[in-house]
């Protein structure tokens, strides 16, 4: 009877350990999944704004007696430094995400010590860079949408409507991407917190 009890205790311990390993694996898979989502979101944001281009012919009246002159105008992301920064930041974030994904899958079996620490540091930097890029693109997009009468910067979104809408979409997608990087750090902290 005593041996039975011992056996049961052993079984419980083993089960407990197996559950712990399973939980760890679950956390790791969740982390990989969120990293993949973050990668895809920042890649999508970079592509949306990078390929965003709108050309239009705008009639401009120089002298009221003459008929208006038709001027072709184009909107592209690299005409504004903030949008360039946004595209570069998102491209860097997505390629960083791809590198980390490959590294974590390659080092699946081994114990990740230094690599995990480096990943946490770089994740934090990505959060800061993506957030500042979002802030910059959103501020300039707002300026294009509303203009600023104090310094007489006119709105341009009444001409480039589709371009501006795609800027809003790109900023939204990139915002979700930076939130998933924040969630990755939260996951790392929580997994450390729960471990003991």
């Amino acid at each position, binding site marked *: 009877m005593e041996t039975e009890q011992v056996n049961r205790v052993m079984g419980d311990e083993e089960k407990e350990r197996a559950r712990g390993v399973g939980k760890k694996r679950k956390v790791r898979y969740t982390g990989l999944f969120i990293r993949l989502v973050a990668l895809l979101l920042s890649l999508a944001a970079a592509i949306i704004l990078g390929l965003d281009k709108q050309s239009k012919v705008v009639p401009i009246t120089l002298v009221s007696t003459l008929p208006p002159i038709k001027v072709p105008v184009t*909107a592209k992301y690299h*005409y*504004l*430094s*903030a949008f360039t*920064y946004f595209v570069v930041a998102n491209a860097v974030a997505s390629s960083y995400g791809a590198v980390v994904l490959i590294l974590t899958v390659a080092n699946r079996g081994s114990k990740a010590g230094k690599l*995990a*620490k480096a990943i*946490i*540091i770089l994740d*934090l*930097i990505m*959060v*800061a*860079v993506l*957030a*500042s*890029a*979002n*802030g*910059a*693109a*959103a*501020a*300039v997009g*707002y*300026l*294009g949408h*509303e203009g*600023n009468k*104090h*310094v*007489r*910067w*006119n709105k*341009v979104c009444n001409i480039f409507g589709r371009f501006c809408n795609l800027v809003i979409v790109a900023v939204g997608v990139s915002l979700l991407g*930076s939130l998933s990087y*924040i969630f990755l*750090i*939260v996951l*790392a*902290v*929580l997994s*450390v*917190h729960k*471990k*003991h």
Partner: protein
Amino acid sequence: MASTDKPDVENVAAPAPEKGAAAPEVPPRSSLTVVEVVLRVLLFVTTLTAVVVMVTSKQTEWVPVPVPPFRRLNSARWTDSPALVYFVAALSVAGLYSIISTLFSISALSKPGNWKFLVSHFVLLDVLLLGIIASAAGAAGAVAYVGLKGNSHSGWVKICTIYDTYCAHVASSVGVAMVAAFVLVLLILLSVFALIKKSLK
């Protein structure tokens, strides 16, 4: 007899304020907590500086106008641009948060048993705040850059040639906000690595 009594008394005395939670290994934590308090005070100082420099950026100048008398007085304020308003709001929130978290860190210094609970909760708020400060600095920096260089494609003229001290205030404020973000990164890394170290024990 006396020698066995003494540590017993200490053992009873130490866990009492912690409600017997855990962590007899208190001493090595306190130096980290001191660094944390210093960094949090630094965070408060930088956010306060950024807000004060931005709010005091008003500049009044004569600007040319197309109708007679061809010039008038015009002032540039931080409230003129929504991006700068967001910047001031975000850094004020960060300053308030840094006061509260400094108080909690100091309380952790006197009652080390609370350390783990505090750190694991504050680190999440810290990350969120890092995102907010970075986005505010990005927004203000982008608008300030347009003011500095102008943009010929959208017909936005540069204004920093007229409002020079205004632009200097905005630029230095954004710079100080970046220092605040860096301090916040250090704080988060400190907490996360301390948590990892503790979990490896």
